[in-house]
């Protein structure tokens, strides 16, 4: 069911990770993603996995909840893996008809799997532990310097936070319209591509109409509450670095240094 998608959701809990400044978490996520692509040793991946596990523990988000978020993307994951397994050139280890599996293919497939899973869990952990508002506040603050070159930073972050708030509502709405049309005999599952695409019209038209109606309502409600852009606005929760944020930056730096060192150690050892 569409409601099972947990990516992008917030998981309320009282944890150290939840309390961190969103900028730390944003930078942390970016550094982690870079690290995942820099690593070229299994021991490096082990370190990255352990680091992630530690953060999950600290965040108090149940592992089950995180894993459930992976479910909807298993198909994409498998596709990428099979693609890499089959189409990587190198030393063949297995051959059957047109299918050739190479040593490099296997290696790439494994590292790709580790990378993708860690990447998805890592970035979804950020959204689990950061309220969308906090997240956009963090983005707004990190992108602050771009204001000087006339990038509408506040507007972008406001749009993002509204989008995040309405995703679950629109998901539920999609579910409802789908059911309503199914009750009228619509069929969203069978048929060829063209038939399926055509079959989506009874779903998409009402969904767009509803999205526009909601957007209209929301704009009015925001204006009624005196919203007039970022200027002159104060913040209920202004971002302020505390000691633990600084410590986190330090830990992050150590982690990244560790990854780099491990890459070289690995080279020395083998």
């Amino acid at each position, binding site marked *: 069911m569409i409601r099972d998608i947990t990516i992008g959701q917030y998981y309320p809990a009282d944890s150290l990770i939840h309390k961190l400044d969103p900028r730390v978490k944003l930078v942390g996520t970016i550094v982690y993603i870079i690290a995942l692509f820099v690593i070229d040793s299994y021991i490096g991946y082990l370190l990255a996995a352990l680091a992630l596990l530690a953060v999950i523990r600290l965040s108090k988000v149940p592992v089950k909840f995180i894993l459930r978020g992976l479910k909807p993307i298993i198909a994409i994951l498998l596709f990428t893996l099979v693609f890499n397994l089959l189409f990587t050139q190198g030393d063949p280890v297995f051959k059957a008809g047109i299918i050739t599996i190479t040593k490099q293919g296997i290696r790439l497939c494994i590292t790709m799997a580790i990378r993708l899973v860690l990447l998805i869990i890592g970035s979804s952990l950020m959204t689990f532990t950061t309220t969308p508002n906090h997240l956009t506040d963090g983005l707004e603050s990190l992108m602050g310097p771009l204001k000087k070159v006339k990038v509408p930073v506040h507007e972008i972050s406001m749009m993002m936070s509204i989008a995040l708030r309405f995703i679950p509502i629109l998901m539920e709405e999609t579910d409802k319209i789908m059911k309503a049309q199914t009750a009228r005999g619509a069929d969203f599952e069978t048929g060829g591509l063209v038939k399926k695409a055509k079959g989506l019209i009874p779903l998409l038209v009402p969904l767009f109409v509803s999205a526009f109606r909601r957007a209209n*309502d929301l704009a009015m*409600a925001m204006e009624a*509450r005196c919203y007039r852009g970022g200027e002159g606005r104060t913040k209920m929760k202004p971002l302020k670095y505390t000691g633990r944020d600084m410590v986190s930056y330090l830990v992050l730096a150590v982690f990244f240094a560790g990854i780099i060192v491990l890459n070289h150690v690995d080279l020395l050892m083998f």
Partner: protein
Amino acid sequence: MEMVKTEGLVFEYIRRNDEGEVESINRAVDNVDLRINKGDFIAILGHNGSGKSTLAKHINAILTPTEGSVWVGGINTREEEHLWDIRQNAGMVFQNPDNQIIGTVVEEDVGFGAENLGVPTEEIWERVEKSLKAVGMLEYRKHSPNKLSGGQKQRVAIAGIMAMKPQCIVLDEPTAMLDPMGRKEVIETVMELNKKEKVTVILITHYMEEVINADKVFVMDKGKVVMEGTPREIFKEVEQLKRYRLDVPQVTELSYELRKSGLKIPEGILTVDELVKAVCALKKE
């Protein structure tokens, strides 16, 4: 002093075709003169399309009159330099609870209006706490609005308005999408704010049961105010209300039917208790 005053208020929705020529004009509000006193609990009744929502949007300066004028707290809504003062002073709650909550956490949503007004951070926290307490939602401050019931969402929306410290709050069919329990929650909250915080309340609705405690009721039809008076004065006109596509509470209807059948029951009965007393008195005779 009046909280809200309108004089000769007219509003027309003008539809234009692709060439910009006027295709049709729909007069949604037609020559309305209103006077609403500070601290009052006012109800505006009317069927769908009677113009009551359009009228409400003038009080928050979302719409400005085609003709005539609206004053909110003595300020004419045409004075653009005071636009934000008017919106701060006359907060507005809308029908769909989902489409007016901006924050993803209850307390952040309640703080949204105060943030826009440039209130200092510490004071925002004080206001948010006080407003959430006033609507009885303090224990939900860290929750996601998506998980709340309809009535709770509307109370959060009301708290968001209260945090802007308005003198007046306009509620545009706040209960239309709620179940009976949610309706009760919202109406009780609003009545309490009116009593305790002395906020002027303008409640727009077509649920008759919600207006029996109002100080004054206006009935709208075809853009005009067609009836005006206390709930008792309004509800004794059962036939007239039905002509305006409205209704009366079931006890009022029963009392009216009994009167029609020749019983000496007073006009404009609003509650079960009043009717029971009237019937008991007749039985004793």
